[in-house]
């Protein structure tokens, strides 16, 4: 039996060496991570890399081929129904019944979780107020815009007051304002101790998470706070510096920059170039060298790596390892 202090210190999710095989194919290989209570955990990775498989394993839909997982302190292998009682899940297509009204959708999901009528009514009132759904209660959910559908879906997933919510690409295909509002709501709820497990393709959303992990073809290749990932030696090798070079002629500048020794890599970001250079490389020297080729440079300034830089570097490194292993 777990003592009360153990329960308090128990993370929202602890995954240890998760493995999932489909026949000969290993979709998830040796994945371990912990999500603490109240965190917004961003789970990233390319399509088909195993994100959904991990969610299905954590929600008890897919049996584990190996490893252990505890969600809200419950072992998913022995009591997946108890896990499903305590979590909420919202998929990217919002999973609403379009021929039912907003209020009928809420009623249905509330009943599914066997909320007794008094509590169901109270929860619906709370959700409606929190999400501003009041004007739309009797409207068919098919007639709502993307942003409102998403709020309704989130509301349906929260009716039973779960302490942990899985959001699978919650902002795919909705407008920027609705996206911003959703994140504001997530921060507010996480302030109340609710944990979020969010998958996304948007790097700016990843930057907002308090904890991110990156899965690449079934293997977890990054896990930490955004800032700790930026400082990884693989991302920021010892003796290098990341700079932003602003110039009106980015395309031509990139061609020349790539030929200068001391610049390890360079890529275009809008009106500027992001480059990884040796830190003994003199910035004034760089400016002069480019000027000599006829490229006027407006500004060169140091830059912290973005999460995109982090994931690109880690992916390259992982691919190199894979190739070395297969040789």
């Amino acid at each position, binding site marked *: 039996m777990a003592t009360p202090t153990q329960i308090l210190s128990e993370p929202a999710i602890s995954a240890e060496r998760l493995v999932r095989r489909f026949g000969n194919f290993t979709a998830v290989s040796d994945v371990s991570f912990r999500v603490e209570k109240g965190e917004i955990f961003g789970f990233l990775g390319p399509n088909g890399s195993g994100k959904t498989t991990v969610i299905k394993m954590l*929600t008890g*839909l*897919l049996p584990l081929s190996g490893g252990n997982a505890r969600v809200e302190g419950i072992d998913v292998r022995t009591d997946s*129904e*108890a896990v*499903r*009682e305590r*979590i909420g*899940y919202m*998929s990217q*297509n*919002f*999973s*609403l*019944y*379009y*021929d*039912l009204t907003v209020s*009928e959708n809420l009623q*249905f*999901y509330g*009943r*599914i*979780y*066997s909320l007794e009528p008094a509590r169901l009514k109270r929860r619906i009132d709370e959700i409606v107020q929190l999400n501003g759904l009041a004007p739309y209660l009797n409207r068919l959910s098919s007639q709502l815009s993307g942003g409102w559908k998403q709020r309704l879906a989130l509301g349906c997933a929260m009716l039973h007051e779960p302490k942990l919510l*899985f959001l699978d690409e919650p902002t795919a295909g909705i407008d920027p304002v609705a996206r911003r509002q959703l994140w504001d709501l997530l921060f507010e709820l996480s302030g109340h101790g609710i944990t979020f497990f969010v998958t996304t393709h948007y790097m700016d959303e990843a930057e907002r998470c308090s904890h991110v992990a990156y899965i690449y073809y079934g293997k977890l290749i990054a896990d930490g706070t955004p800032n700790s990932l930026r400082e990884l030696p693989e991302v920021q090798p010892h003796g290098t510096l990341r700079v932003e070079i602003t110039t009106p002629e980015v395309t031509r500048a990139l061609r020349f920059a790539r030929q200068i020794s001391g610049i390890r890599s360079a890529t275009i970001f809008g009106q500027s170039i992001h480059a990884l250079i040796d830190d003994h490389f003199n910035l004034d020297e760089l400016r002069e060298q480019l000027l000599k080729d006829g490229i006027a440079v407006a500004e060169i300034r140091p830059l912290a790596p973005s999460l995109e830089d982090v994931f690109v570097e880690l992916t390259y490194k992982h691919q190199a390892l894979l190739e070395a292993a297969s040789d």
Partner: protein
Amino acid sequence: MTNIFRGFGAVFYKEALHVRRDAGTLFFSLTMPLLQMFLLGFAIDTNIRQINTVVYNADGRRESRELLDRLTNSDTFHIIRFVENDHDLNDMIIGGKARVGVKIPVDYSDRLLHNMSAQVLVLIDGSDSSVAGQAINVTTAIGLDESLRRVLQDRAALAVDMRPKLLFNPDSRSPNFFLPGLTAIMLLNVTTFLTAFSIVREKERGTLEQLFVTPVRPFGLLLGKLLPYLGIGFFELCLILFFMRFVFLVPIHGNVLLLAFLSLPYLFAALSLGILISSKANSQAEAMQLAFLPILPSVFFSGYIFPRETIPAILYPLSYLIPATYFINITRGIILRGATITHLWKDGLALCLIGAFLLIIAARRFHDKVIMA
């Protein structure tokens, strides 16, 4: 926590809402069978009567006219024209204006009066086998009868007098034959389609995936989804029986309650088939095509239109695997022959077995291909 039907009430209520919202589909699926009933009940008659017939009567005397009267009195032939030569006779048949041509030779009456054998040529269009068969049977019978009358000279009774009597459907009414069978096909249609659609729609929408991460138990989910459609299927059955009895005047000789009771295992099999289809189909269009698959063998191999005796030996065992085979036997048995449970329990049992078998396969497929995918 151990309630294996958890979520049943919520799903059932929601499904009823879907049905009410989508009144168009419900209306369509309930009226289509009635439309088919009207087509088969009123418009189609399998009894061949009034075959268009052309006659070349080269003789023209009393004996020949008597023969023609007997042909027309049989109700099988309808003389549309008399011609004067062989060419016109052939031409009418080739042109499709007449199916049968009768040529009475010029010496017909003479030969009969001299107690010699007289010949009558009957040309039959063989392009429709059932019409041809009927024409051959009736003309042969009339010829035989005519011969006997002349030999016996109306003096004695026939040595062997065959008296065939049609039981259960004495007038050979087509609705009596078709409508009980149609009940089986229509129920299969409605329940399989509606079930498959209701599940595939949730697959398309992504709501099924959502339900799997809630505490709903698979039994609660399936039962909640199926029962409303079982109800619709049952209502459909009542509707069909009502129209059959009071509009098409098909007498029901057996116990209607027994029929209702035995329709349950049939509906069970049809619903299981719907689940099986929905485990395979990923879109409603795909479900539509798959749902048509069981319809064809149910129409052709169940005895609904063609007697099962006509099925080639290799395919005959197939008819035992088709739920409609048993249910058609049940409907015809109860409605036309007044059969009771002692005659029909085997059919009911077979339906239960097929239904259970389908449900097990469907549940297994559903588990592997939908939940674990």
